[in-house]
């Protein structure tokens, strides 16, 4: 590694001063209730749990633990709002509510960004520049569909499904809430949203926003809690639709439990995305793209480019450059504006990442881990790259959902496609090449719902997102995203 000394001696000696965002901007309350029928209320059992800042393990707020009784209250409220109000509103009225919500998210974006970073552990740069603006944009986009459903390609006057139960993950809490609520409301459904156990706060701020937008009570209900809350929602007989984003394991269980019911189902599950690098790819952009593909949001991304497939002729150079770049990633305080990689969201997730990376070593892969200093408190994992990975290794097959990249090699485009498709998942892939015709040739053969060419982890409300095979079914975003909430 002839180019390492330069990085260490000159560039490596430059230090950034801390530039932390103030946690006070979040204006967090000591406790939050359930948002049902337009009001915050305690759980019937008065049960609460603490939501924790994963960067320092300190409790942020107490949150209500909803039981099956509370879920029932929420569904009853959603049903009433559907029957009495929402199903009678015009598309133009729904449109204007959604535009209001989009604007309010824009107005409160800084507060929401800090809330998200505190509760999730992701760098403020990402919550500020990605999560929150995209959430607002998603509402803005679907606001425009609410009065145009006749033009969406599902026939004239398509009808909503009714009451939608929506269960979202902890990796992009507000953005996932937006992905679920915006199309559902645009199409005319009412919702019961269940945020992830470890990241409920931004959804509760969203509840305040819904109040400010004067959305009619019961149109959106938000129930916080653990897995049992989600299970109660899935099992509730008066729910017409379940939309779930999370692990394939839980998704499979939900599909089994709803199989014999009238419930419509869409699932956005795990992935093991292949990022395919051909020897003609522009190297600087490609290295940044690989880094972004796996270390964005600490690798807590279902579509993360967690398998790097490099053409053999450039593999050595790519690996050398990658390892050097990983060493430069700034890991630490998520509220610091210069932080690249934040905290792992929970102790449980940290344990899983450690377990799988231990397998990586014991199965014979070569490990490169950043020498960055990790904070004493909180849940942290240093960015890691495994080389010499083979397709049978667990780190090449299982979703790690952390800042860990597995590097494999290939010789021909056919081999790249075969290896990329050698997974049960099918969510996303990347292709890096200057040759457009080859990129399209590869893209046609990849079994993945999203394929990025010379970029990675791009999201836009107009672009459909979702998986094939065990990555789930149904699309979120774009015109296609309406289908999940229309009875068509």
């Amino acid at each position, binding site marked *: 590694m002839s180019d390492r000394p330069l990085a260490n001696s000159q560039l490596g000696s430059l230090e950034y001063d801390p530039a932390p965002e103030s946690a006070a901007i979040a204006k967090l309350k000591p406790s939050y209730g359930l948002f049902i029928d337009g009001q915050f209320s305690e759980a019937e059992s008065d049960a609460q749990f603490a939501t924790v800042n994963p960067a320092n393990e300190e409790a942020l707020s107490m949150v209500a633990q909803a039981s099956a009784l509370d879920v029932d209250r929420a569904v009853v409220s959603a049903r009433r709002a559907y029957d009495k109000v929402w199903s009678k509103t015009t598309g133009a009225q729904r449109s204007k509510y959604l535009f209001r919500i989009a604007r309010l998210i824009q107005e409160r974006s800084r507060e929401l960004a800090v809330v998200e970073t505190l509760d999730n552990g992701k760098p403020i740069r990402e919550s500020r520049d990605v999560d929150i603006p995209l959430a607002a*944009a998603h509402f*803005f986009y679907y606001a*425009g569909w609410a*009065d145009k459903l006749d*033009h969406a390609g599902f026939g004239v006057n398509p009808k909503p499904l009714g009451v939608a139960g929506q269960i979202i993950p902890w990796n992009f809490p507000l953005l996932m809430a937006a992905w679920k609520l915006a199309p559902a409301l645009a199409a005319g459904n009412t919702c019961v949203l269940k945020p992830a156990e470890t990241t409920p706060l931004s959804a509760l701020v969203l509840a305040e926003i819904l109040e400010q937008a004067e959305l009619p009570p019961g149109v959106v209900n938000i129930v916080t809690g653990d897995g049992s809350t989600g299970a109660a929602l899935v099992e509730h007989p008066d729910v017409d639709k379940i939309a779930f984003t999370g692990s394939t394991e839980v998704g499979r269980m939900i599909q089994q439990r709803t199989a014999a019911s009238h419930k419509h189902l869409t699932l956005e599950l795990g992935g093991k995305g292949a990022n395919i690098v051909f020897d003609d790819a522009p190297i600087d952009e490609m290295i940044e793209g690989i880094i972004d593909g796996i270390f964005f949001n600490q690798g807590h991304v279902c579509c993360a480019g967690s398998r790097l497939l490099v053409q053999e002729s450039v593999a050595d150079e790519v690996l050398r450059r990658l390892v050097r770049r990983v060493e430069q990633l700034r890991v630490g305080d998520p509220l610091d504006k210069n932080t690249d990689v934040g905290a792992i969201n929970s102790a449980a997730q940290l344990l899983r990442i450690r377990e799988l990376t231990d397998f990586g070593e014991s199965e014979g892969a070569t490990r490169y881990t950043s020498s960055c200093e990790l904070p004493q408190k909180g849940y942290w994992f240093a960015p890691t790259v495994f080389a010499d990975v083979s397709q049978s290794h667990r780190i090449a097959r299982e979703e790690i959902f952390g800042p860990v990249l597995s590097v494999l090699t290939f010789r021909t485009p056919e081999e790249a496609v075969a290896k990329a498709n050698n997974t049960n998942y099918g969510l996303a892939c990347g292709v890096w090449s200057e040759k457009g015709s080859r990129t399209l040739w590869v893209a046609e053969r990849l079994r993945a719902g999203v394929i990025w060419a010379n970029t990675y982890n791009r999201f836009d409300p*107009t672009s459909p997102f979702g998986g094939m095979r065990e990555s789930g079914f149904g699309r979120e975003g774009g*015109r296609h995203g309406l289908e999940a909430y229309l009875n068509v």
Partner: protein
Amino acid sequence: MSEARLDVRKTYKLLINGAFPRSESGRSYEVTSAKGAFLANVAQGSRKDLRDAVTAARGAQVKWWNSTAYNRGQVIYRLAEMAESRRDELAEHVALCEGVNARTSQKTVSASIDRMVWYAGWTDKIAQVLGGTNPVAGPFFNFSIPVPSGVVGVVCVQESSLEGFVDAVLAPLCVGNTVVALASERRPTPAVLLGEMTSSSDFPAGVLNIVTGPSDELASVLASHEDVDGLDLSGVTSVDADGLAALGASSIKRVYRPHEMESDSSLRRLRAFVETSTVWHTIGQ
């Protein structure tokens, strides 16, 4: 004894390239309310003003189209916000110009604002409705996208001073065209007010230009202008429209003429000034 306060009256000017000039000719014409009372001396746009407006629209077009569809949606939605907050002023002028009562004019304003919201939502959806991929029989990735025609000249309807103006102007803007609009000749003030609102709605200069003045004379200038790509003839009688449409043929203009049966949810206006651009790209190793 205190005297009754004298109100300060407004000069109604043109909107060209983000500025509000009087006509370069220095002329104005008298506009009266539907009941015949003096309303304003409105700038009487000249041929030169119209040519300046076309130049401004041409200069702004590429930038407007290259801004993201999301951004164009935000700008148009912002106009709806501005109009809502100044709705009473708009309603007053609609009532004066159209001779309707306050309730009707408020309804007209509401419908016009909702129309703005409708168009704000179209900017980032029109490509998904009008565009698509084409499964050609060969190793090619082939897709079609709608692109704007360019500069559109709009002769606005004479009767519907606000709602008609909004519909005629926002449809071409929302798909990425820039516009030179001839406001209703006898009822121009609601359009002039809305033009003023665009200056607080993040509309880039030159994207929307509004000229007031004699429709017949100015329409023929628009129709024969070589640098105008599209022509909306909503505001001319069908006999005049035939002649103007023929004038437009000199530079192969796209011509829109309203259809009797057109409904509010029709996409005819949106499709009127859109070109289909199709790309073939090879697929292969």
